[in-house]
């Protein structure tokens, strides 16, 4: 009798386990689909890729587009053409922002209000001192247009002072597979030099710093210094970054990694 009872209980327990597992799986599927609907789908997400690029900045011709520097390769490796960004701000201001054929490089952050993976990026954007960019690099945060976004939620998420331009057209132009997605554009050439996704802005910044040899992505724009000092520092930065040593690395202070 006891054996039979144990057998029945075991069978009932097994059936319950199967049911619970099925429910959890269905719940996971629902969450994943919701995440995709929010624009945070992983299906097309690409790991961040950055192409090597020269670090010397171009000079600007008076009255014309920025000139190519002498040491810029004739045919640098490129991911594709970039496009200017047009849209509107969260305050309803219409914007046409130049990304192509300009002096400055641009870091485009394609974020959404509803994507869970974007929360880290929004949080970093709002943390004082968390965002570093090389001097002359512009940051544009680009959610989709008002028809495709939750604008009140974006107003809650977007920190003051961050340039947010809502533009579904930009998402189409840059073929954004989902959010978060980061695109780094070389302004003078108007070409995309790096794009993909990452777990945080900090992680993307470190990848950019390693690839470009510009520690400004991690430390911020350099202060004004004599050219010779600046060139020497840039050369040292390139060497360190090429060896995977970022600012703050313990090896810089004689400690083991």
């Amino acid at each position: 009798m006891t054996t039979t009872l144990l057998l029945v209980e075991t069978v009932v327990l097994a059936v319950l386990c199967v049911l619970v597992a099925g429910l959890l799986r269905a719940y996971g599927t629902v969450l994943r689909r919701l995440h995709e609907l929010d624009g945070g789908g992983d299906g097309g997400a690409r790991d961040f890729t950055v192409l090597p690029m020269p670090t010397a900045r171009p000079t600007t011709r008076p009255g014309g587009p920025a000139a190519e520097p002498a040491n810029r390769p004739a045919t640098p490796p490129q991911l594709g053409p970039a496009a200017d960004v047009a849209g509107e701000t969260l305050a309803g201001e219409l914007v046409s922002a130049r990304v192509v054929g300009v002096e400055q490089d641009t870091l485009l952050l394609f974020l959404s209000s509803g994507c869970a993976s974007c929360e880290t990026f929004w949080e970093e954007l709002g943390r004082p001192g968390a965002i570093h960019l090389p001097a002359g690099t512009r940051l544009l945060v680009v959610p989709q247009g008002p028809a495709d976004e939750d604008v009140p939620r974006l107003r809650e998420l977007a920190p003051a002072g961050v340039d947010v331009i809502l533009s579904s057209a930009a998402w189409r132009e840059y073929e954004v597979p989902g959010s978060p997605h980061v695109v780094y554009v070389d302004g003078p050439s108007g070409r995309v030099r790096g794009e993909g996704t990452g777990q945080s802005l900090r992680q993307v910044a470190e990848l950019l710093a390693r690839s470009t040899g510009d520690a400004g992505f991690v430390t911020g724009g350099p202060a004004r210094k004599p050219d010779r000092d600046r060139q020497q520092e840039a050369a040292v930065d390139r060497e360190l970054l090429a060896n995977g040593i970022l600012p703050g690395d313990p090896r810089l202070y004689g400690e083991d990694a």
Partner: protein
Amino acid sequence: MNRTAVGGPRATVAAHGLRVTLPERWEARLYRRAAVHGGPADESHQPVLHLGNFALPPARGDFGTGAVEVMGPRHAFVALLEYDRDEAGTPLFAAARPTLIPADFAANALQRRLPGQLGCQRFFTENGRAFCVYAVLGSREHAATLLGEVGDVLTRVEVS
């Protein structure tokens, strides 16, 4: 109808009866004063158009505070501000849209005086609408070139 278009080297911004097709390198931001700054609902929401041949920052005053500080010597900034329609044709706004010349620009015409910069402010009426155009050149050294750019972009502004 509000419309913002983008594509290659040309971009068009149009709203509130203003339209501009931008030359290369120039960008634009167009807003209505109270709508952005949270003014009272009964205040007239006159449009403000900002134009610059540099990256216009997100936070700017109507006359470019916040933008002129980041200008370089080869940069130029233009603000086109509309005033109440009642002002159109009054003595201050009696002139037609001006063509700006070098003699119009001076350091003491700047809203915010910054080293090297030159400014100019003119009032006019067009299509029954009263406007002020305020332009800032980044440096005297490049004034001639910059004035050419400013003149070019202003001729592209259409008032309907």
